[in-house]
């Protein structure tokens, strides 16, 4: 479980995050949703320690990041897997090289065992036939898969994904979401996913944290998101034509119940 307590962040005197309180549960896909520019990425970077919040605490299963020394921090980082918005694959390494990277740097396994583990991860994301290709030679969806394979190579306890399906078509997005959800349940990881995609929200939103202009406005899940009272959340959820229709249907349902 990861806890964020009263997290606030400033950039050059400009406040980006306002007193965010949230918990991210083990074995579940936790979603951070919000409009573009609302501070999701900044919040996630605070969570993993790439940025240090000016106020507030981040706790990993009770361990405060702020109080950790370098050795403990290093240890924590080997327990974290991260999927960046642009995949962040190493351009000069093949798919296999990318997945091998964390293994060669950190694992005590022998070379054969490392290769075995890398191939297992590549197979888990369904890319058996592409392991000799370079990132520039594969599609965006495949790059995301490679990034997932790299993130899970060291069997992390915590998995962070920054907009895993931005720039992908709806069908590929759903496949990636399902993959993330499956992996989370399979290995009991604490998964945190940034997204602004309503399909993911409804598909894998076991816990949802809504951020609006740096404020945490609502916390819930995919079951109760349509019945939320928060105005900003409703504006976000029912922004598209499709969900306006859904809203009408829902309202009719409520009326007929009366």
């Amino acid at each position: 479980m990861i806890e964020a307590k009263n997290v606030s962040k400033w950039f050059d005197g400009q406040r980006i995050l306002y007193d965010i309180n949230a918990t991210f549960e083990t074995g579940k896909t936790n979603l951070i949703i919000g409009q573009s520019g609302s501070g999701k990425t900044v919040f996630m970077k605070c969570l993993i320690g790439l940025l240090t919040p000016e106020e507030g605490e981040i706790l990993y299963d009770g361990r405060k990041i702020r109080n950790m020394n370098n050795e403990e921090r290093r240890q924590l980082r080997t327990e974290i897997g991260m999927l960046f918005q642009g995949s962040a694959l190493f351009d000069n390494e093949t798919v296999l090289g990318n997945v091998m990277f964390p293994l060669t740097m950190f694992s005590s396994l022998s070379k054969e065992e490392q290769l075995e583990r890398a191939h297992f991860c590549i197979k888990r994301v369904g890319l058996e036939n592409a392991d000799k290709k370079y990132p520039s030679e594969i599609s965006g969806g495949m790059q995301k898969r490679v990034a997932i394979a790299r993130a899970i190579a060291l069997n992390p306890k915590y998995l962070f994904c920054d907009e895993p399906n931005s720039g992908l078509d709806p069908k590929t997005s759903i496949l990636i979401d399902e993959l993330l959800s499956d992996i989370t349940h399979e290995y009991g990881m604490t998964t945190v996913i940034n997204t602004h995609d309503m399909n993911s929200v409804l598909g894998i939103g076991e816990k949802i944290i809504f951020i609006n202009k740096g404020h945490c406005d609502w916390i819930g899940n995919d079951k109760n998101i349509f019945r939320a009272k928060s105005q900003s959340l409703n504006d976000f959820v029912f922004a598209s034509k499709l969900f306006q229709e859904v809203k009408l249907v829902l309202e009719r349902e409520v009326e007929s119940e009366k």
Partner: protein
Amino acid sequence: MIKSIKNFGKYCLFLVQVFKRPDKWRVFFKSLIFEIDKLGVDSIPLVLIISLFIGAVICIQMTINIVSPLIPSYSTGLATREILLLEFSSTMMCLILAGKVGSNIASEIGTMRVTEQIDAMDIMGVNSANYIVLPKIIGFVLFVPVLCVLSMFFGLIGGWFIAEFTTMISVENYNYGLQSFFNEWYVWYGIIKTVVFAFIITSVAAFCGYYVKGGALEVGKASTNAVVSSSILILLADVILTKLLLQ
């Protein structure tokens, strides 16, 4: 002014990050070999071509401009040699390499920064500065004396071509000039300078690339910055080293 002092401080802290013990020596040596090949060996053709031509031009200039009965005719070879050994093969060549190697390093690392590859390494717990930059600095510093000596040699060959294939100066005269009043220390002086300059080029370029913020546009700016700053620093270091080593 305050900004440049701040930047210098940041640069020093960056170097402290870079000069840590590598996480895995095997990985380090692998990338060291790779960088020597990419930064060093790949620069050889450029160095050869430029040195040949400049050597030839210096030889022509010296013959044309030194036409005095008071100066012996072998001084053409002598002057060509001194210019190559003292300044061209170290300072000028490094200024040119700053353009090639420096911009290459800055844009490569800058791209890694803006595509979050560096963040990805940091998140894994890899010391990204050390992992990416150290092999580049060590590799280039180790290989650059070779480039320097090659440049000296091929510069002299360039001059020899003029002596051989034109009637401006005879080959005997040129060769005699090359061999007279030779001071071995000048070769070492050139090599020491190139080593220092190579360190400046690689570390400054890596620094510029590592702290890029923003997107592709800033990567381009960083690479220009790297070339400009390292060129100025090379000239500054040239003055200081010459005063220290030749006096």
